[in-house]
């Protein structure tokens, strides 16, 4: 249950980030926005489009952070384990 919720949440946001990133960078979609007109908020359209994509990605991160905060995923307490023979390599 727990792992399913976490995986679904992570996957949904990852798809969202991927879609926006594709719009922001990939040939075709980016080419449509790569022009000066129309001007939006005093910016050429190319810049406005780029800033919009970045803002949407930032908003996604904020929402994901808020959800994870509610679920308690951000305040995980971890107890150190005696790992002197394990850490960083093959177990002997």
């Amino acid at each position, binding site marked *: 249950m727990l792992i399913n919720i976490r995986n679904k949440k992570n996957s949904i946001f990852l798809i969202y980030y991927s879609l926006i990133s594709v719009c922001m960078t990939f040939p075709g979609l*980016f080419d449509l926005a790569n022009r000066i007109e129309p001007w939006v908020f005093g910016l050429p359209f190319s810049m406005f489009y780029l800033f919009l994509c*970045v803002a949407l990605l930032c908003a996604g991160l904020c929402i*994901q952070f808020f959800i994870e905060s509610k*679920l308690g995923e*951000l305040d*995980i307490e971890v107890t150190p384990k005696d790992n002197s023979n394990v*850490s960083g390599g093959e177990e002997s």
Partner: protein
Amino acid sequence: MNIIPLIMIFTFFAIMLFIIRKKLGVSSFEDYATANRSFGFFALTFSVLATWIVGAMYTAWAGMAVTYGFTALYCIAYAIITMIVMYYVAPKTYIWGVRYGIKTQSELLGFRYQSKSLRMLTGIWGIVFTIPWLIVEIVTQGYVFEYATGGLISQFWGMVLGIIVVAVFVSLGGMRSVITANVFQGLILIFGGTALMIYFVYKYFGGFASGFEMVVNDYPGMLTYPGPGWDSPTPYWTSIVILSGLGGFLWPWAYNKLFAGDSIRTIKVSAVLAPIIYAIFFSIFVVTAIFIHSYDQTLSDVQGAFLWIASESGPIALGLLGVVIMASSVGTVSGIIQAISTTISRDLAQVINRKISDKKAVYIARISVVVISIVSLFFGTADLGLMVFLALFTYDGIILLFPVVILGLYWKRANKEGAIIGLIAGTALSMFLRFFNPNFIEGWGWQPGVYGLTLSFIIMIVVGYMKNPSAFVQKLWEDTEIIYAENVRVPTLKPRSRIS
């Protein structure tokens, strides 16, 4: 010669050393490498920014922005992708780091894949592809000293001064002094840099609106990709954003900061805040560079464009820009040297000889700082143009750590055979295409790292399906889920058992 810029730079160094004076001294190797995982979000955010924003931004990247305009904004596009990567790698890096005492990126990978070979290999990858950045930054420091003092301090002695200061506080204070200094440097470079850019825009162009009006009338090509006089296909834009975005957080000097955070919340707050601050800061920088393009004097030396306009604005402006560049550069250099010295001690020396004591590990790291500094100085006397060229190549190499890290953290089937073969084969393909530069690279626009990354993913996935996950990995995943189950609230009315 006006000595005000020199005084301002020395004052910056003096204040920085004063701030970190109580951090000089480490109690253990854990303290040297991770500052005992003690830093909160404010320190981590500005540390990531200070390490990440390089001094060469005002020379090499300024050249790109002044010449091609909009294209330089690829940096804000990739920055947000980098922070998404940071957001996703943070939980398991933190959990495994604390649980199993992991202190470096390579150690994390060696632990996950249960492979000393992979640990050493990724450590070497991190060092090899990082060195060009270190050299570029040291040369930048020398360049700023020489420019700001009107040649009184030569570039070589500027490099020596800069590296001595960094070597002293890194070797004595480790990660704790690096992050503390980074906060100061980060505040200086973000607020000082932004204020200076806005000053230039209003002093020379009458504000943003009139600046844009001038550019759209006289240099409209600066406002779209790829920029004036350059005919690069769109996949080049796609490549540089995606490669830099996915690879940007895999530099050991950036990744290792995760081990200094005191919680997952701290790291994720930093991942949310850093791109917002960076986007504002860098956008203003690029817009200013686009406006500066209108000055013919800057086009003959685009890399010195910002220093030229600062010198035209008087000694205070030149001194402030010198301080901002120095803050950016020292932040990066200190992070790099700390990361490399930690890797040498932890992922190479201690793997070869497991009997090295904690005290000796710190000693090895400190000696490494001195050696790295001397070697960097030696190479810093070479041609800077060549170094920038090499630095840009490094993304084609460091990006190959992405499949190893991301599949290692999220896919149980990822195994050491696939990781090692994928890393070597992907890097070999990437470097081959970069150095032999066949026609289709420029024709299609996709950069070598894209081909290497694709090959590496394919190899890791194919090899991953050739054998079942090891018992160690199964146990590791179960332990991680138990940790989550003990802490995370399940949004359901009916309590249910954990499914692993």
